[in-house]
């Protein structure tokens, strides 16, 4: 992989991590509105997948895929604005946190709360590409928890049947809210589960951004070329609670320690340094840029106006 791309990965992951940390801090200080979700630990997946997307591809990210939104060009101002219910937010005050942060001009479908509704929707996007014979792919994400829902099965069955240009990333982060894998399913054999539908399956270390990127890039290219759908299981760990209010006392401390050692941002930084791809100074510079970028976004969002209540009814219909 070329060096600039590897450095770019770091920049996006760091921007994502910084956003996440600042967001958590704001909410803890009572400067937030409603609840919010941290994607800490998921940066390699969200950034790796996001960077693998081509300009004409479409993606429907989830609540822990902040990096994908950012890489795809969603300005942090619009995301913080959304979280604070501002008129400048992506949903203009209509939807909360990362929900509804969508923009078809950027090829992003906003997060849909009811799990896993992004699956059939994204299959439809893929089928539209197929219908028009366009070399484009559609990608979405699902948590381990979302895979036990009926829409998972219906979508993958049809994706396999029609060999749609569809890529699904399963973010297996060990928990669905408080529920560990062994209370969700007999065995977390995600690849087997997907392969019965006639779908290519791959498992990847979800904390290794280069691996995620390459796996996704290959799957997306196969999809664009008519090679059909892929399901990628990316293993990782949810490092904070389910949402901001959740202390996640139910997660064994040892598990978090183990995964902390595998932190995707730290490890990619280490890799860049050890392999001499980037210098400490370069990376420090990227860290500083991320801090500034996020500080500016927060300032913008906090300073932005609330929506005018008279706009309540606007946009219910196209």
């Amino acid at each position: 992989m070329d060096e600039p791309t590897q450095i770019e990965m770091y920049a996006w992951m760091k921007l994502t991590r910084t956003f996440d940390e600042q967001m958590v801090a704001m909410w803890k200080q009572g400067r937030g509105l409603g609840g919010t979700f941290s994607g800490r630990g998921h940066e390699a997946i969200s950034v790796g997948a996001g960077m693998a997307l081509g300009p004409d591809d479409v993606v429907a990210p989830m609540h822990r895929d902040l990096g994908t939104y950012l890489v795809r060009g969603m300005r942090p101002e619009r995301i913080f604005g959304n979280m604070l219910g501002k008129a400048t937010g992506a949903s203009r005050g209509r939807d909360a946190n990362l929900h509804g942060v969508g923009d078809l001009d950027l090829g992003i479908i906003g997060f849909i709360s009811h799990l896993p509704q992004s699956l059939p929707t994204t299959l439809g996007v893929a089928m539209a590409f197929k219908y028009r014979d366009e070399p484009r792919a559609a990608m979405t994400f699902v948590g381990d928890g979302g895979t036990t829902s009926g829409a998972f099965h219906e979508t993958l069955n049809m994706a396999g049947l029609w060999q749609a240009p569809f890529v699904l990333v399963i973010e297996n982060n060990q928990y669905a809210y408080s529920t560990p894998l062994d209370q969700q399913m007999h065995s977390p054999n995600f690849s087997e589960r997907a392969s019965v539908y006639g779908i290519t399956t791959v498992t990847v270390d979800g904390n290794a951004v280069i691996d995620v990127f390459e796996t996704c890039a290959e799957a997306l290219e196969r999809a664009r070329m008519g090679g059909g759908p892929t399901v990628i299981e990316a293993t990782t760990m949810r490092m904070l609670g389910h949402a901001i209010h959740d202390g996640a006392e139910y997660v064994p401390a040892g598990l978090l320690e183990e995964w902390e050692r595998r932190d995707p941002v730290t490890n990619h930084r280490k890799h860049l340094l050890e392999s001499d791809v980037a210098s400490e100074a370069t990376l420090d510079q990227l860290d500083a840029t991320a801090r500034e970028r996020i500080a500016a976004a927060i300032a913008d969002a906090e300073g932005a106006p609330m929506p005018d209540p008279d706009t309540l009814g606007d946009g219910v219909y196209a």
Partner: protein
Amino acid sequence: MSDNFGFTETPASSGRELTYLEAIAEAIRLEMERDENVLVMGEDVGGGFGGAFKVTKGLAERFGDRRVLNTPIAELGFTGMASGMALMGLRPIIEMQFADFISTAFDSIVQFASTAHYRMDAAVPWVIRAPSDGGIRSGPFHSQNPEAWFVHTPGLKVVAPATPADAKGLLTAAIRDDNPVIYFEAKPLYRSLKSTVPAGEHVVPLGSAVIRRHGTDVTVISYGSMVHQVSAAAEAVEADGISTMVVDLRSLKPLDVETILEAAASTGKVVVTHAANRMAGVGAEIAALIAEEAFESLDGPIVRMGGADTPVPFSPPLEDAYRPDAAKIAGAIRELAAW
């Protein structure tokens, strides 16, 4: 057969007689010819088969499998899929095999399709064709009229044509509309009702009701197949000297509030009726609207007639007891006229 119902079709120019089903099929075919983005999907709609009611018969031969997509039994999945297609500019027409099965796709309709534009400015232009209504001995799972669930849901549009001409015109409008539209077709009318339908392009705007019959004593508001029962009832009570105004709503969401209120005010006496069960049905909305906005013009209670608050029973005596019909409606008109 429309003569039996005692009213003339609104747009009667240059038409031919088509059945209700043929009118639906014609609308689909014309829109598929006009716009490459229009496609049909659903269980058994494709190949030589053409769907459980044969509405889509011949389309696969004409437009190919790409535009007439047979789906597995997966209403939730394929309705959600239609939303994704619609986001990309396609205009899927989804056939539910029976309206009853729409509950299986419910989550996708009421949570995603209905809210996408509000939340992310993205249009979801699909149509669900839902063969609804009973009276033909199909039992509780093939006779439902589930429109109220959707009329209550913001972001959807809901229509229910009563005549072949409206079946064509409303479906054309629904396909061209940029929002998710649920189109309830009255399956008892499919082959039993034949009347004049304009040839070529014919659009009936969503949100416009029509007065099927003018009258001065009592206003009866209805939609779908029940309009014909109302017309027959109006005919019957004329012999008693009662003059009935018949309103066919056509669109249930958005409602044509102006026409409803004017028609209600003009006679001061109103009956609202539909085949769906009465409790918290669409009739409740109409009655509540009138009770609030036309209260001063009212000369009597607003009478609602709907199905009983039971599943739709299969056996003829039970189903007949369940459904409003011309005789029951005539009874209600007479009673209200005498009030």
